[in-house]
């Protein structure tokens, strides 16, 4: 016999604990500024494991919806989670917390680049960093192809968008606008 679920899991969705905008702002600032090499693992650690604001299931559901909507997944999640706990003020607080620190860091990086970017040593460092950064993006794309194995048709759409945007350098709006309806229709017909 499975152990009984803690009752809080069943009531969470309708009876969310009240978490104020300030707490949301601080939590999202903290997870954004700890997120070297990706924020999502830190979001999980902070929101689910440390603070217990979300159950594992709620985190996965929010992530799935965040991935469905355009834009950065973690940004969409911040809006949804903030709104859930504290309405519009919560959504604004969580999102601002997520981007404010990194925004200022980017400005600092821009200032440093302006001042020192031309120095030979900095140029050499940047040349190594950008070679690695290109590899990171390519590796991410290659990892994502593991989701493609089943249907040959999805390989076709991946290849077409790679050729259109990457090789031919056509505008993205035209390529995605042209491919998306067919890709979604194909996925709809192949649904189980």
């Amino acid at each position, binding site marked *: 016999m499975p152990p009984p679920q803690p009752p809080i899991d069943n009531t969470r969705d309708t009876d969310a604990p009240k978490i104020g905008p300030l707490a949301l702002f601080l939590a999202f600032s903290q997870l954004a500024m700890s997120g070297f090499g990706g924020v999502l693992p830190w979001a999980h650690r902070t929101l689910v494991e440390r603070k217990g604001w979300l159950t594992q299931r709620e985190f996965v559901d929010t992530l799935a919806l965040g991935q469905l*909507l355009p834009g*950065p997944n973690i940004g969409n999640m911040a809006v949804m989670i903030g709104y859930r706990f504290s309405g519009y003020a919560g959504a604004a607080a969580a999102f601002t917390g997520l981007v404010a620190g990194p925004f200022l860091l980017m*400005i600092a990086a821009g200032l440093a*680049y302006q001042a020192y970017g031309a120095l030979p040593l900095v140029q050499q*460092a940047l040349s190594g960093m950008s070679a690695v950064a290109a590899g990171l993006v390519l590796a991410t*794309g290659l990892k994502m192809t593991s989701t*493609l194995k089943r249907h040959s048709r999805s390989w076709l759409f991946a290849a077409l968008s790679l050729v259109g945007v990457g090789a031919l350098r056509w505008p993205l709006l035209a390529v*995605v606008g042209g491919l998306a309806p067919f890709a979604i229709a194909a996925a709809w017909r192949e649904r189980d």
Partner: protein
Amino acid sequence: MDRVDLPALGLHFALLSLMAIGGVSSILPDMQRYVVEANHWLSPKQFADAYALAQAAPGPNMMFVTLVGWQLAGWAGAIVATLAIVGPPILLTMGATRLNARNPDAPLGRAIRGGLGPIAIGLTLSSGWILAQSADHSERTALLTLLTIVLMLRTRLNPVWLILAGAIAGMTGIL
């Protein structure tokens, strides 16, 4: 370098933000096309440098647009570029939340994700290809890119260590 047209930049980035399926790396190719190739506001190297610097800093990936905006037009550029990329998705997300779109696993949600997923893969690989074209100016830098791919696919190393290793490799003059 030509003069930057901020309203046009904002509009273009805002449109792109609605196409950012699976995150900002899927729209990087078109940002590069618009900023570097069509308008000559930045050199390919400045664009690739901005991306590399942003990867070395903590925070969401999308924040690299802040640095691109800063390079284009200082504070005003940083603010316009960032708001254009984050604004439309926030409004859409709020809308979806208000409509109580709780169940992304419904058949239509699954079909949209299943359809857009492969396109996002093609776009992400395009981003990597474009970055590699401006970053890999010698056999050694190309080798470093290749090594990064192998390490990322075979190990669970935090990418920040690889960026740091790349910086050190560059500074010691191996590249």
